[in-house]
C-alpha cells in the first residue's frame, strides 16, 4: 500500500494541521460537478476551506483515501486543459446539500477512518453542534454522509482530539 493511504503517514504528515482545525469554521466546500450529467464526479477531491486552511480529501481507486493541503487552485477549472474542463466539469459549492449545510459550523474534532488497520478509508469531521461530515471511499463510491454507517466496519483514529 502506498504510504499516502496509511494512517500512520497521514498522522505524521498532517496531524498537526488537522489538530489546528479544531475551533475554526468550515468556510467553504467545493465538489466537482459533472455539469452535463448533473452528478458529483466521485473521483475528484472534495475541497474544504477551514478557517483559511485548504484541505483536499481524495477517494482513490477502489478503497484508498488520502488528503492533501493547498495543492489545488480552485480558481482553475477541474482537469484544467487550456483553461477549461475537457468534459464540462466545474467546482460547485452546492452540489451536495449535506456538505453545503455544514458550511459555517465550527470543527470540534477530526477522525481518520480505516479498514483494515492503518489503511485510510475516510475522514469524519465533527462540529461543535454535534453534527458530522463523513467523507469516505466505500468501494469506489465517494461516500458523503452525516454518520459512519456501522456496516462499513471502519476503525477510528482521533486526530483533532487527544487520543
Amino acid at each position, binding site marked *: 500500500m502506498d504510504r499516502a493511504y496509511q494512517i500512520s503517514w497521514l498522522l505524521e504528515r498532517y496531524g498537526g494541521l488537522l*489538530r*489546528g*482545525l*479544531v*475551533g*475554526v*469554521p468550515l468556510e467553504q466546500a467545493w465538489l466537482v460537478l459533472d455539469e452535463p450529467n448533473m452528478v458529483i464526479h466521485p473521483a475528484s477531491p472534495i475541497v474544504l476551506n477551514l*478557517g483559511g486552511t485548504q484541505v483536499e480529501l481524495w477517494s482513490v481507486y477502489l478503497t484508498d483515501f488520502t488528503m492533501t493541503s493547498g495543492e489545488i487552485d480552485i480558481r482553475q477549472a477541474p482537469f484544467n486543459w487550456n483553461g477549461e474542463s475537457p468534459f464540462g466539469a466545474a467546482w460547485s459549492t452546492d452540489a451536495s446539500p449535506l456538505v453545503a449545510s455544514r458550511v*459555517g*459550523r*465550527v470543527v470540534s*474534532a477530526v477522525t481518520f477512518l480505516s479498514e483494515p488497520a492503518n489503511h485510510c478509508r475516510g475522514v469524519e469531521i465533527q*462540529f*461543535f*453542534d454535534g453534527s458530522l461530515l463523513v467523507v469516505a471511499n466505500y468501494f469506489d463510491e465517494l461516500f458523503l454522509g452525516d454518520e459512519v454507517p456501522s456496516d462499513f466496519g471502519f476503525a477510528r483514529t482521533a486526530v*483533532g*482530539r*487527544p487520543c
Partner: protein
Amino acid sequence: MDDLNDPKVRPFSRAIGQQLGLEPKFIDFVFSPHHHDFFRYRVESVGESWTAIIPPDVSAAYPLWSSNGEQTLVCVNGEGLWFGLGWHDGSDDPEYLSKSVQGLLARLFIDGVDPSAPLLEYEAAAETCGFRYLSDVVSFLRASAGHDGAFQEKIWHFINEIDGRSVGA
C-alpha cells in the same frame, strides 16, 4: 491590528459564539454597542488590541473584548473551550481565567464589585450580560474581606466552583 495578532486569533462572530455553545445573552453582551457603566474600561472594543502569542495547544482563539489593549479570549482546542487573557506585549501565553462564561463573568464582577455596596447596585449590569452568580460574588467578597495573601487562591477556588456549577448547565 490584525497583523499584530498571532495567526490563530480570528474574528469572533455571533455564529461562532452560537457554534461554540456560548450563552445567547452573553453573545448579545459581547456585541452590544454600549455597555453598562460598570464595565467601563474593562470591556471595550477589540479594535485597538491584539494578542501576540497563542500557545501550540490552542488551535483557535477568538477575542471577545479588550481592556488596556489586552484581549479577553475564548480559546479552543481538542479538549474544548477556556477563557483567557491575551497579552499584547512579550512572549507570555494567555492567562487562564475560567472554563465557563459564568466563571469569566464572575472574574469581571469580583474586580468591580464593592462588597459594602447594596447588591441592587450591580443587578442591572449582571442582567445585561446574563451573569447568574452576583449574590455569590458579593458573599465571596464579604467573606474574603481583608484580601490577605490567599485571596488569589480563594478566587481560583471560587471560579472553579462557578465553572463546575455552570458548565453544561
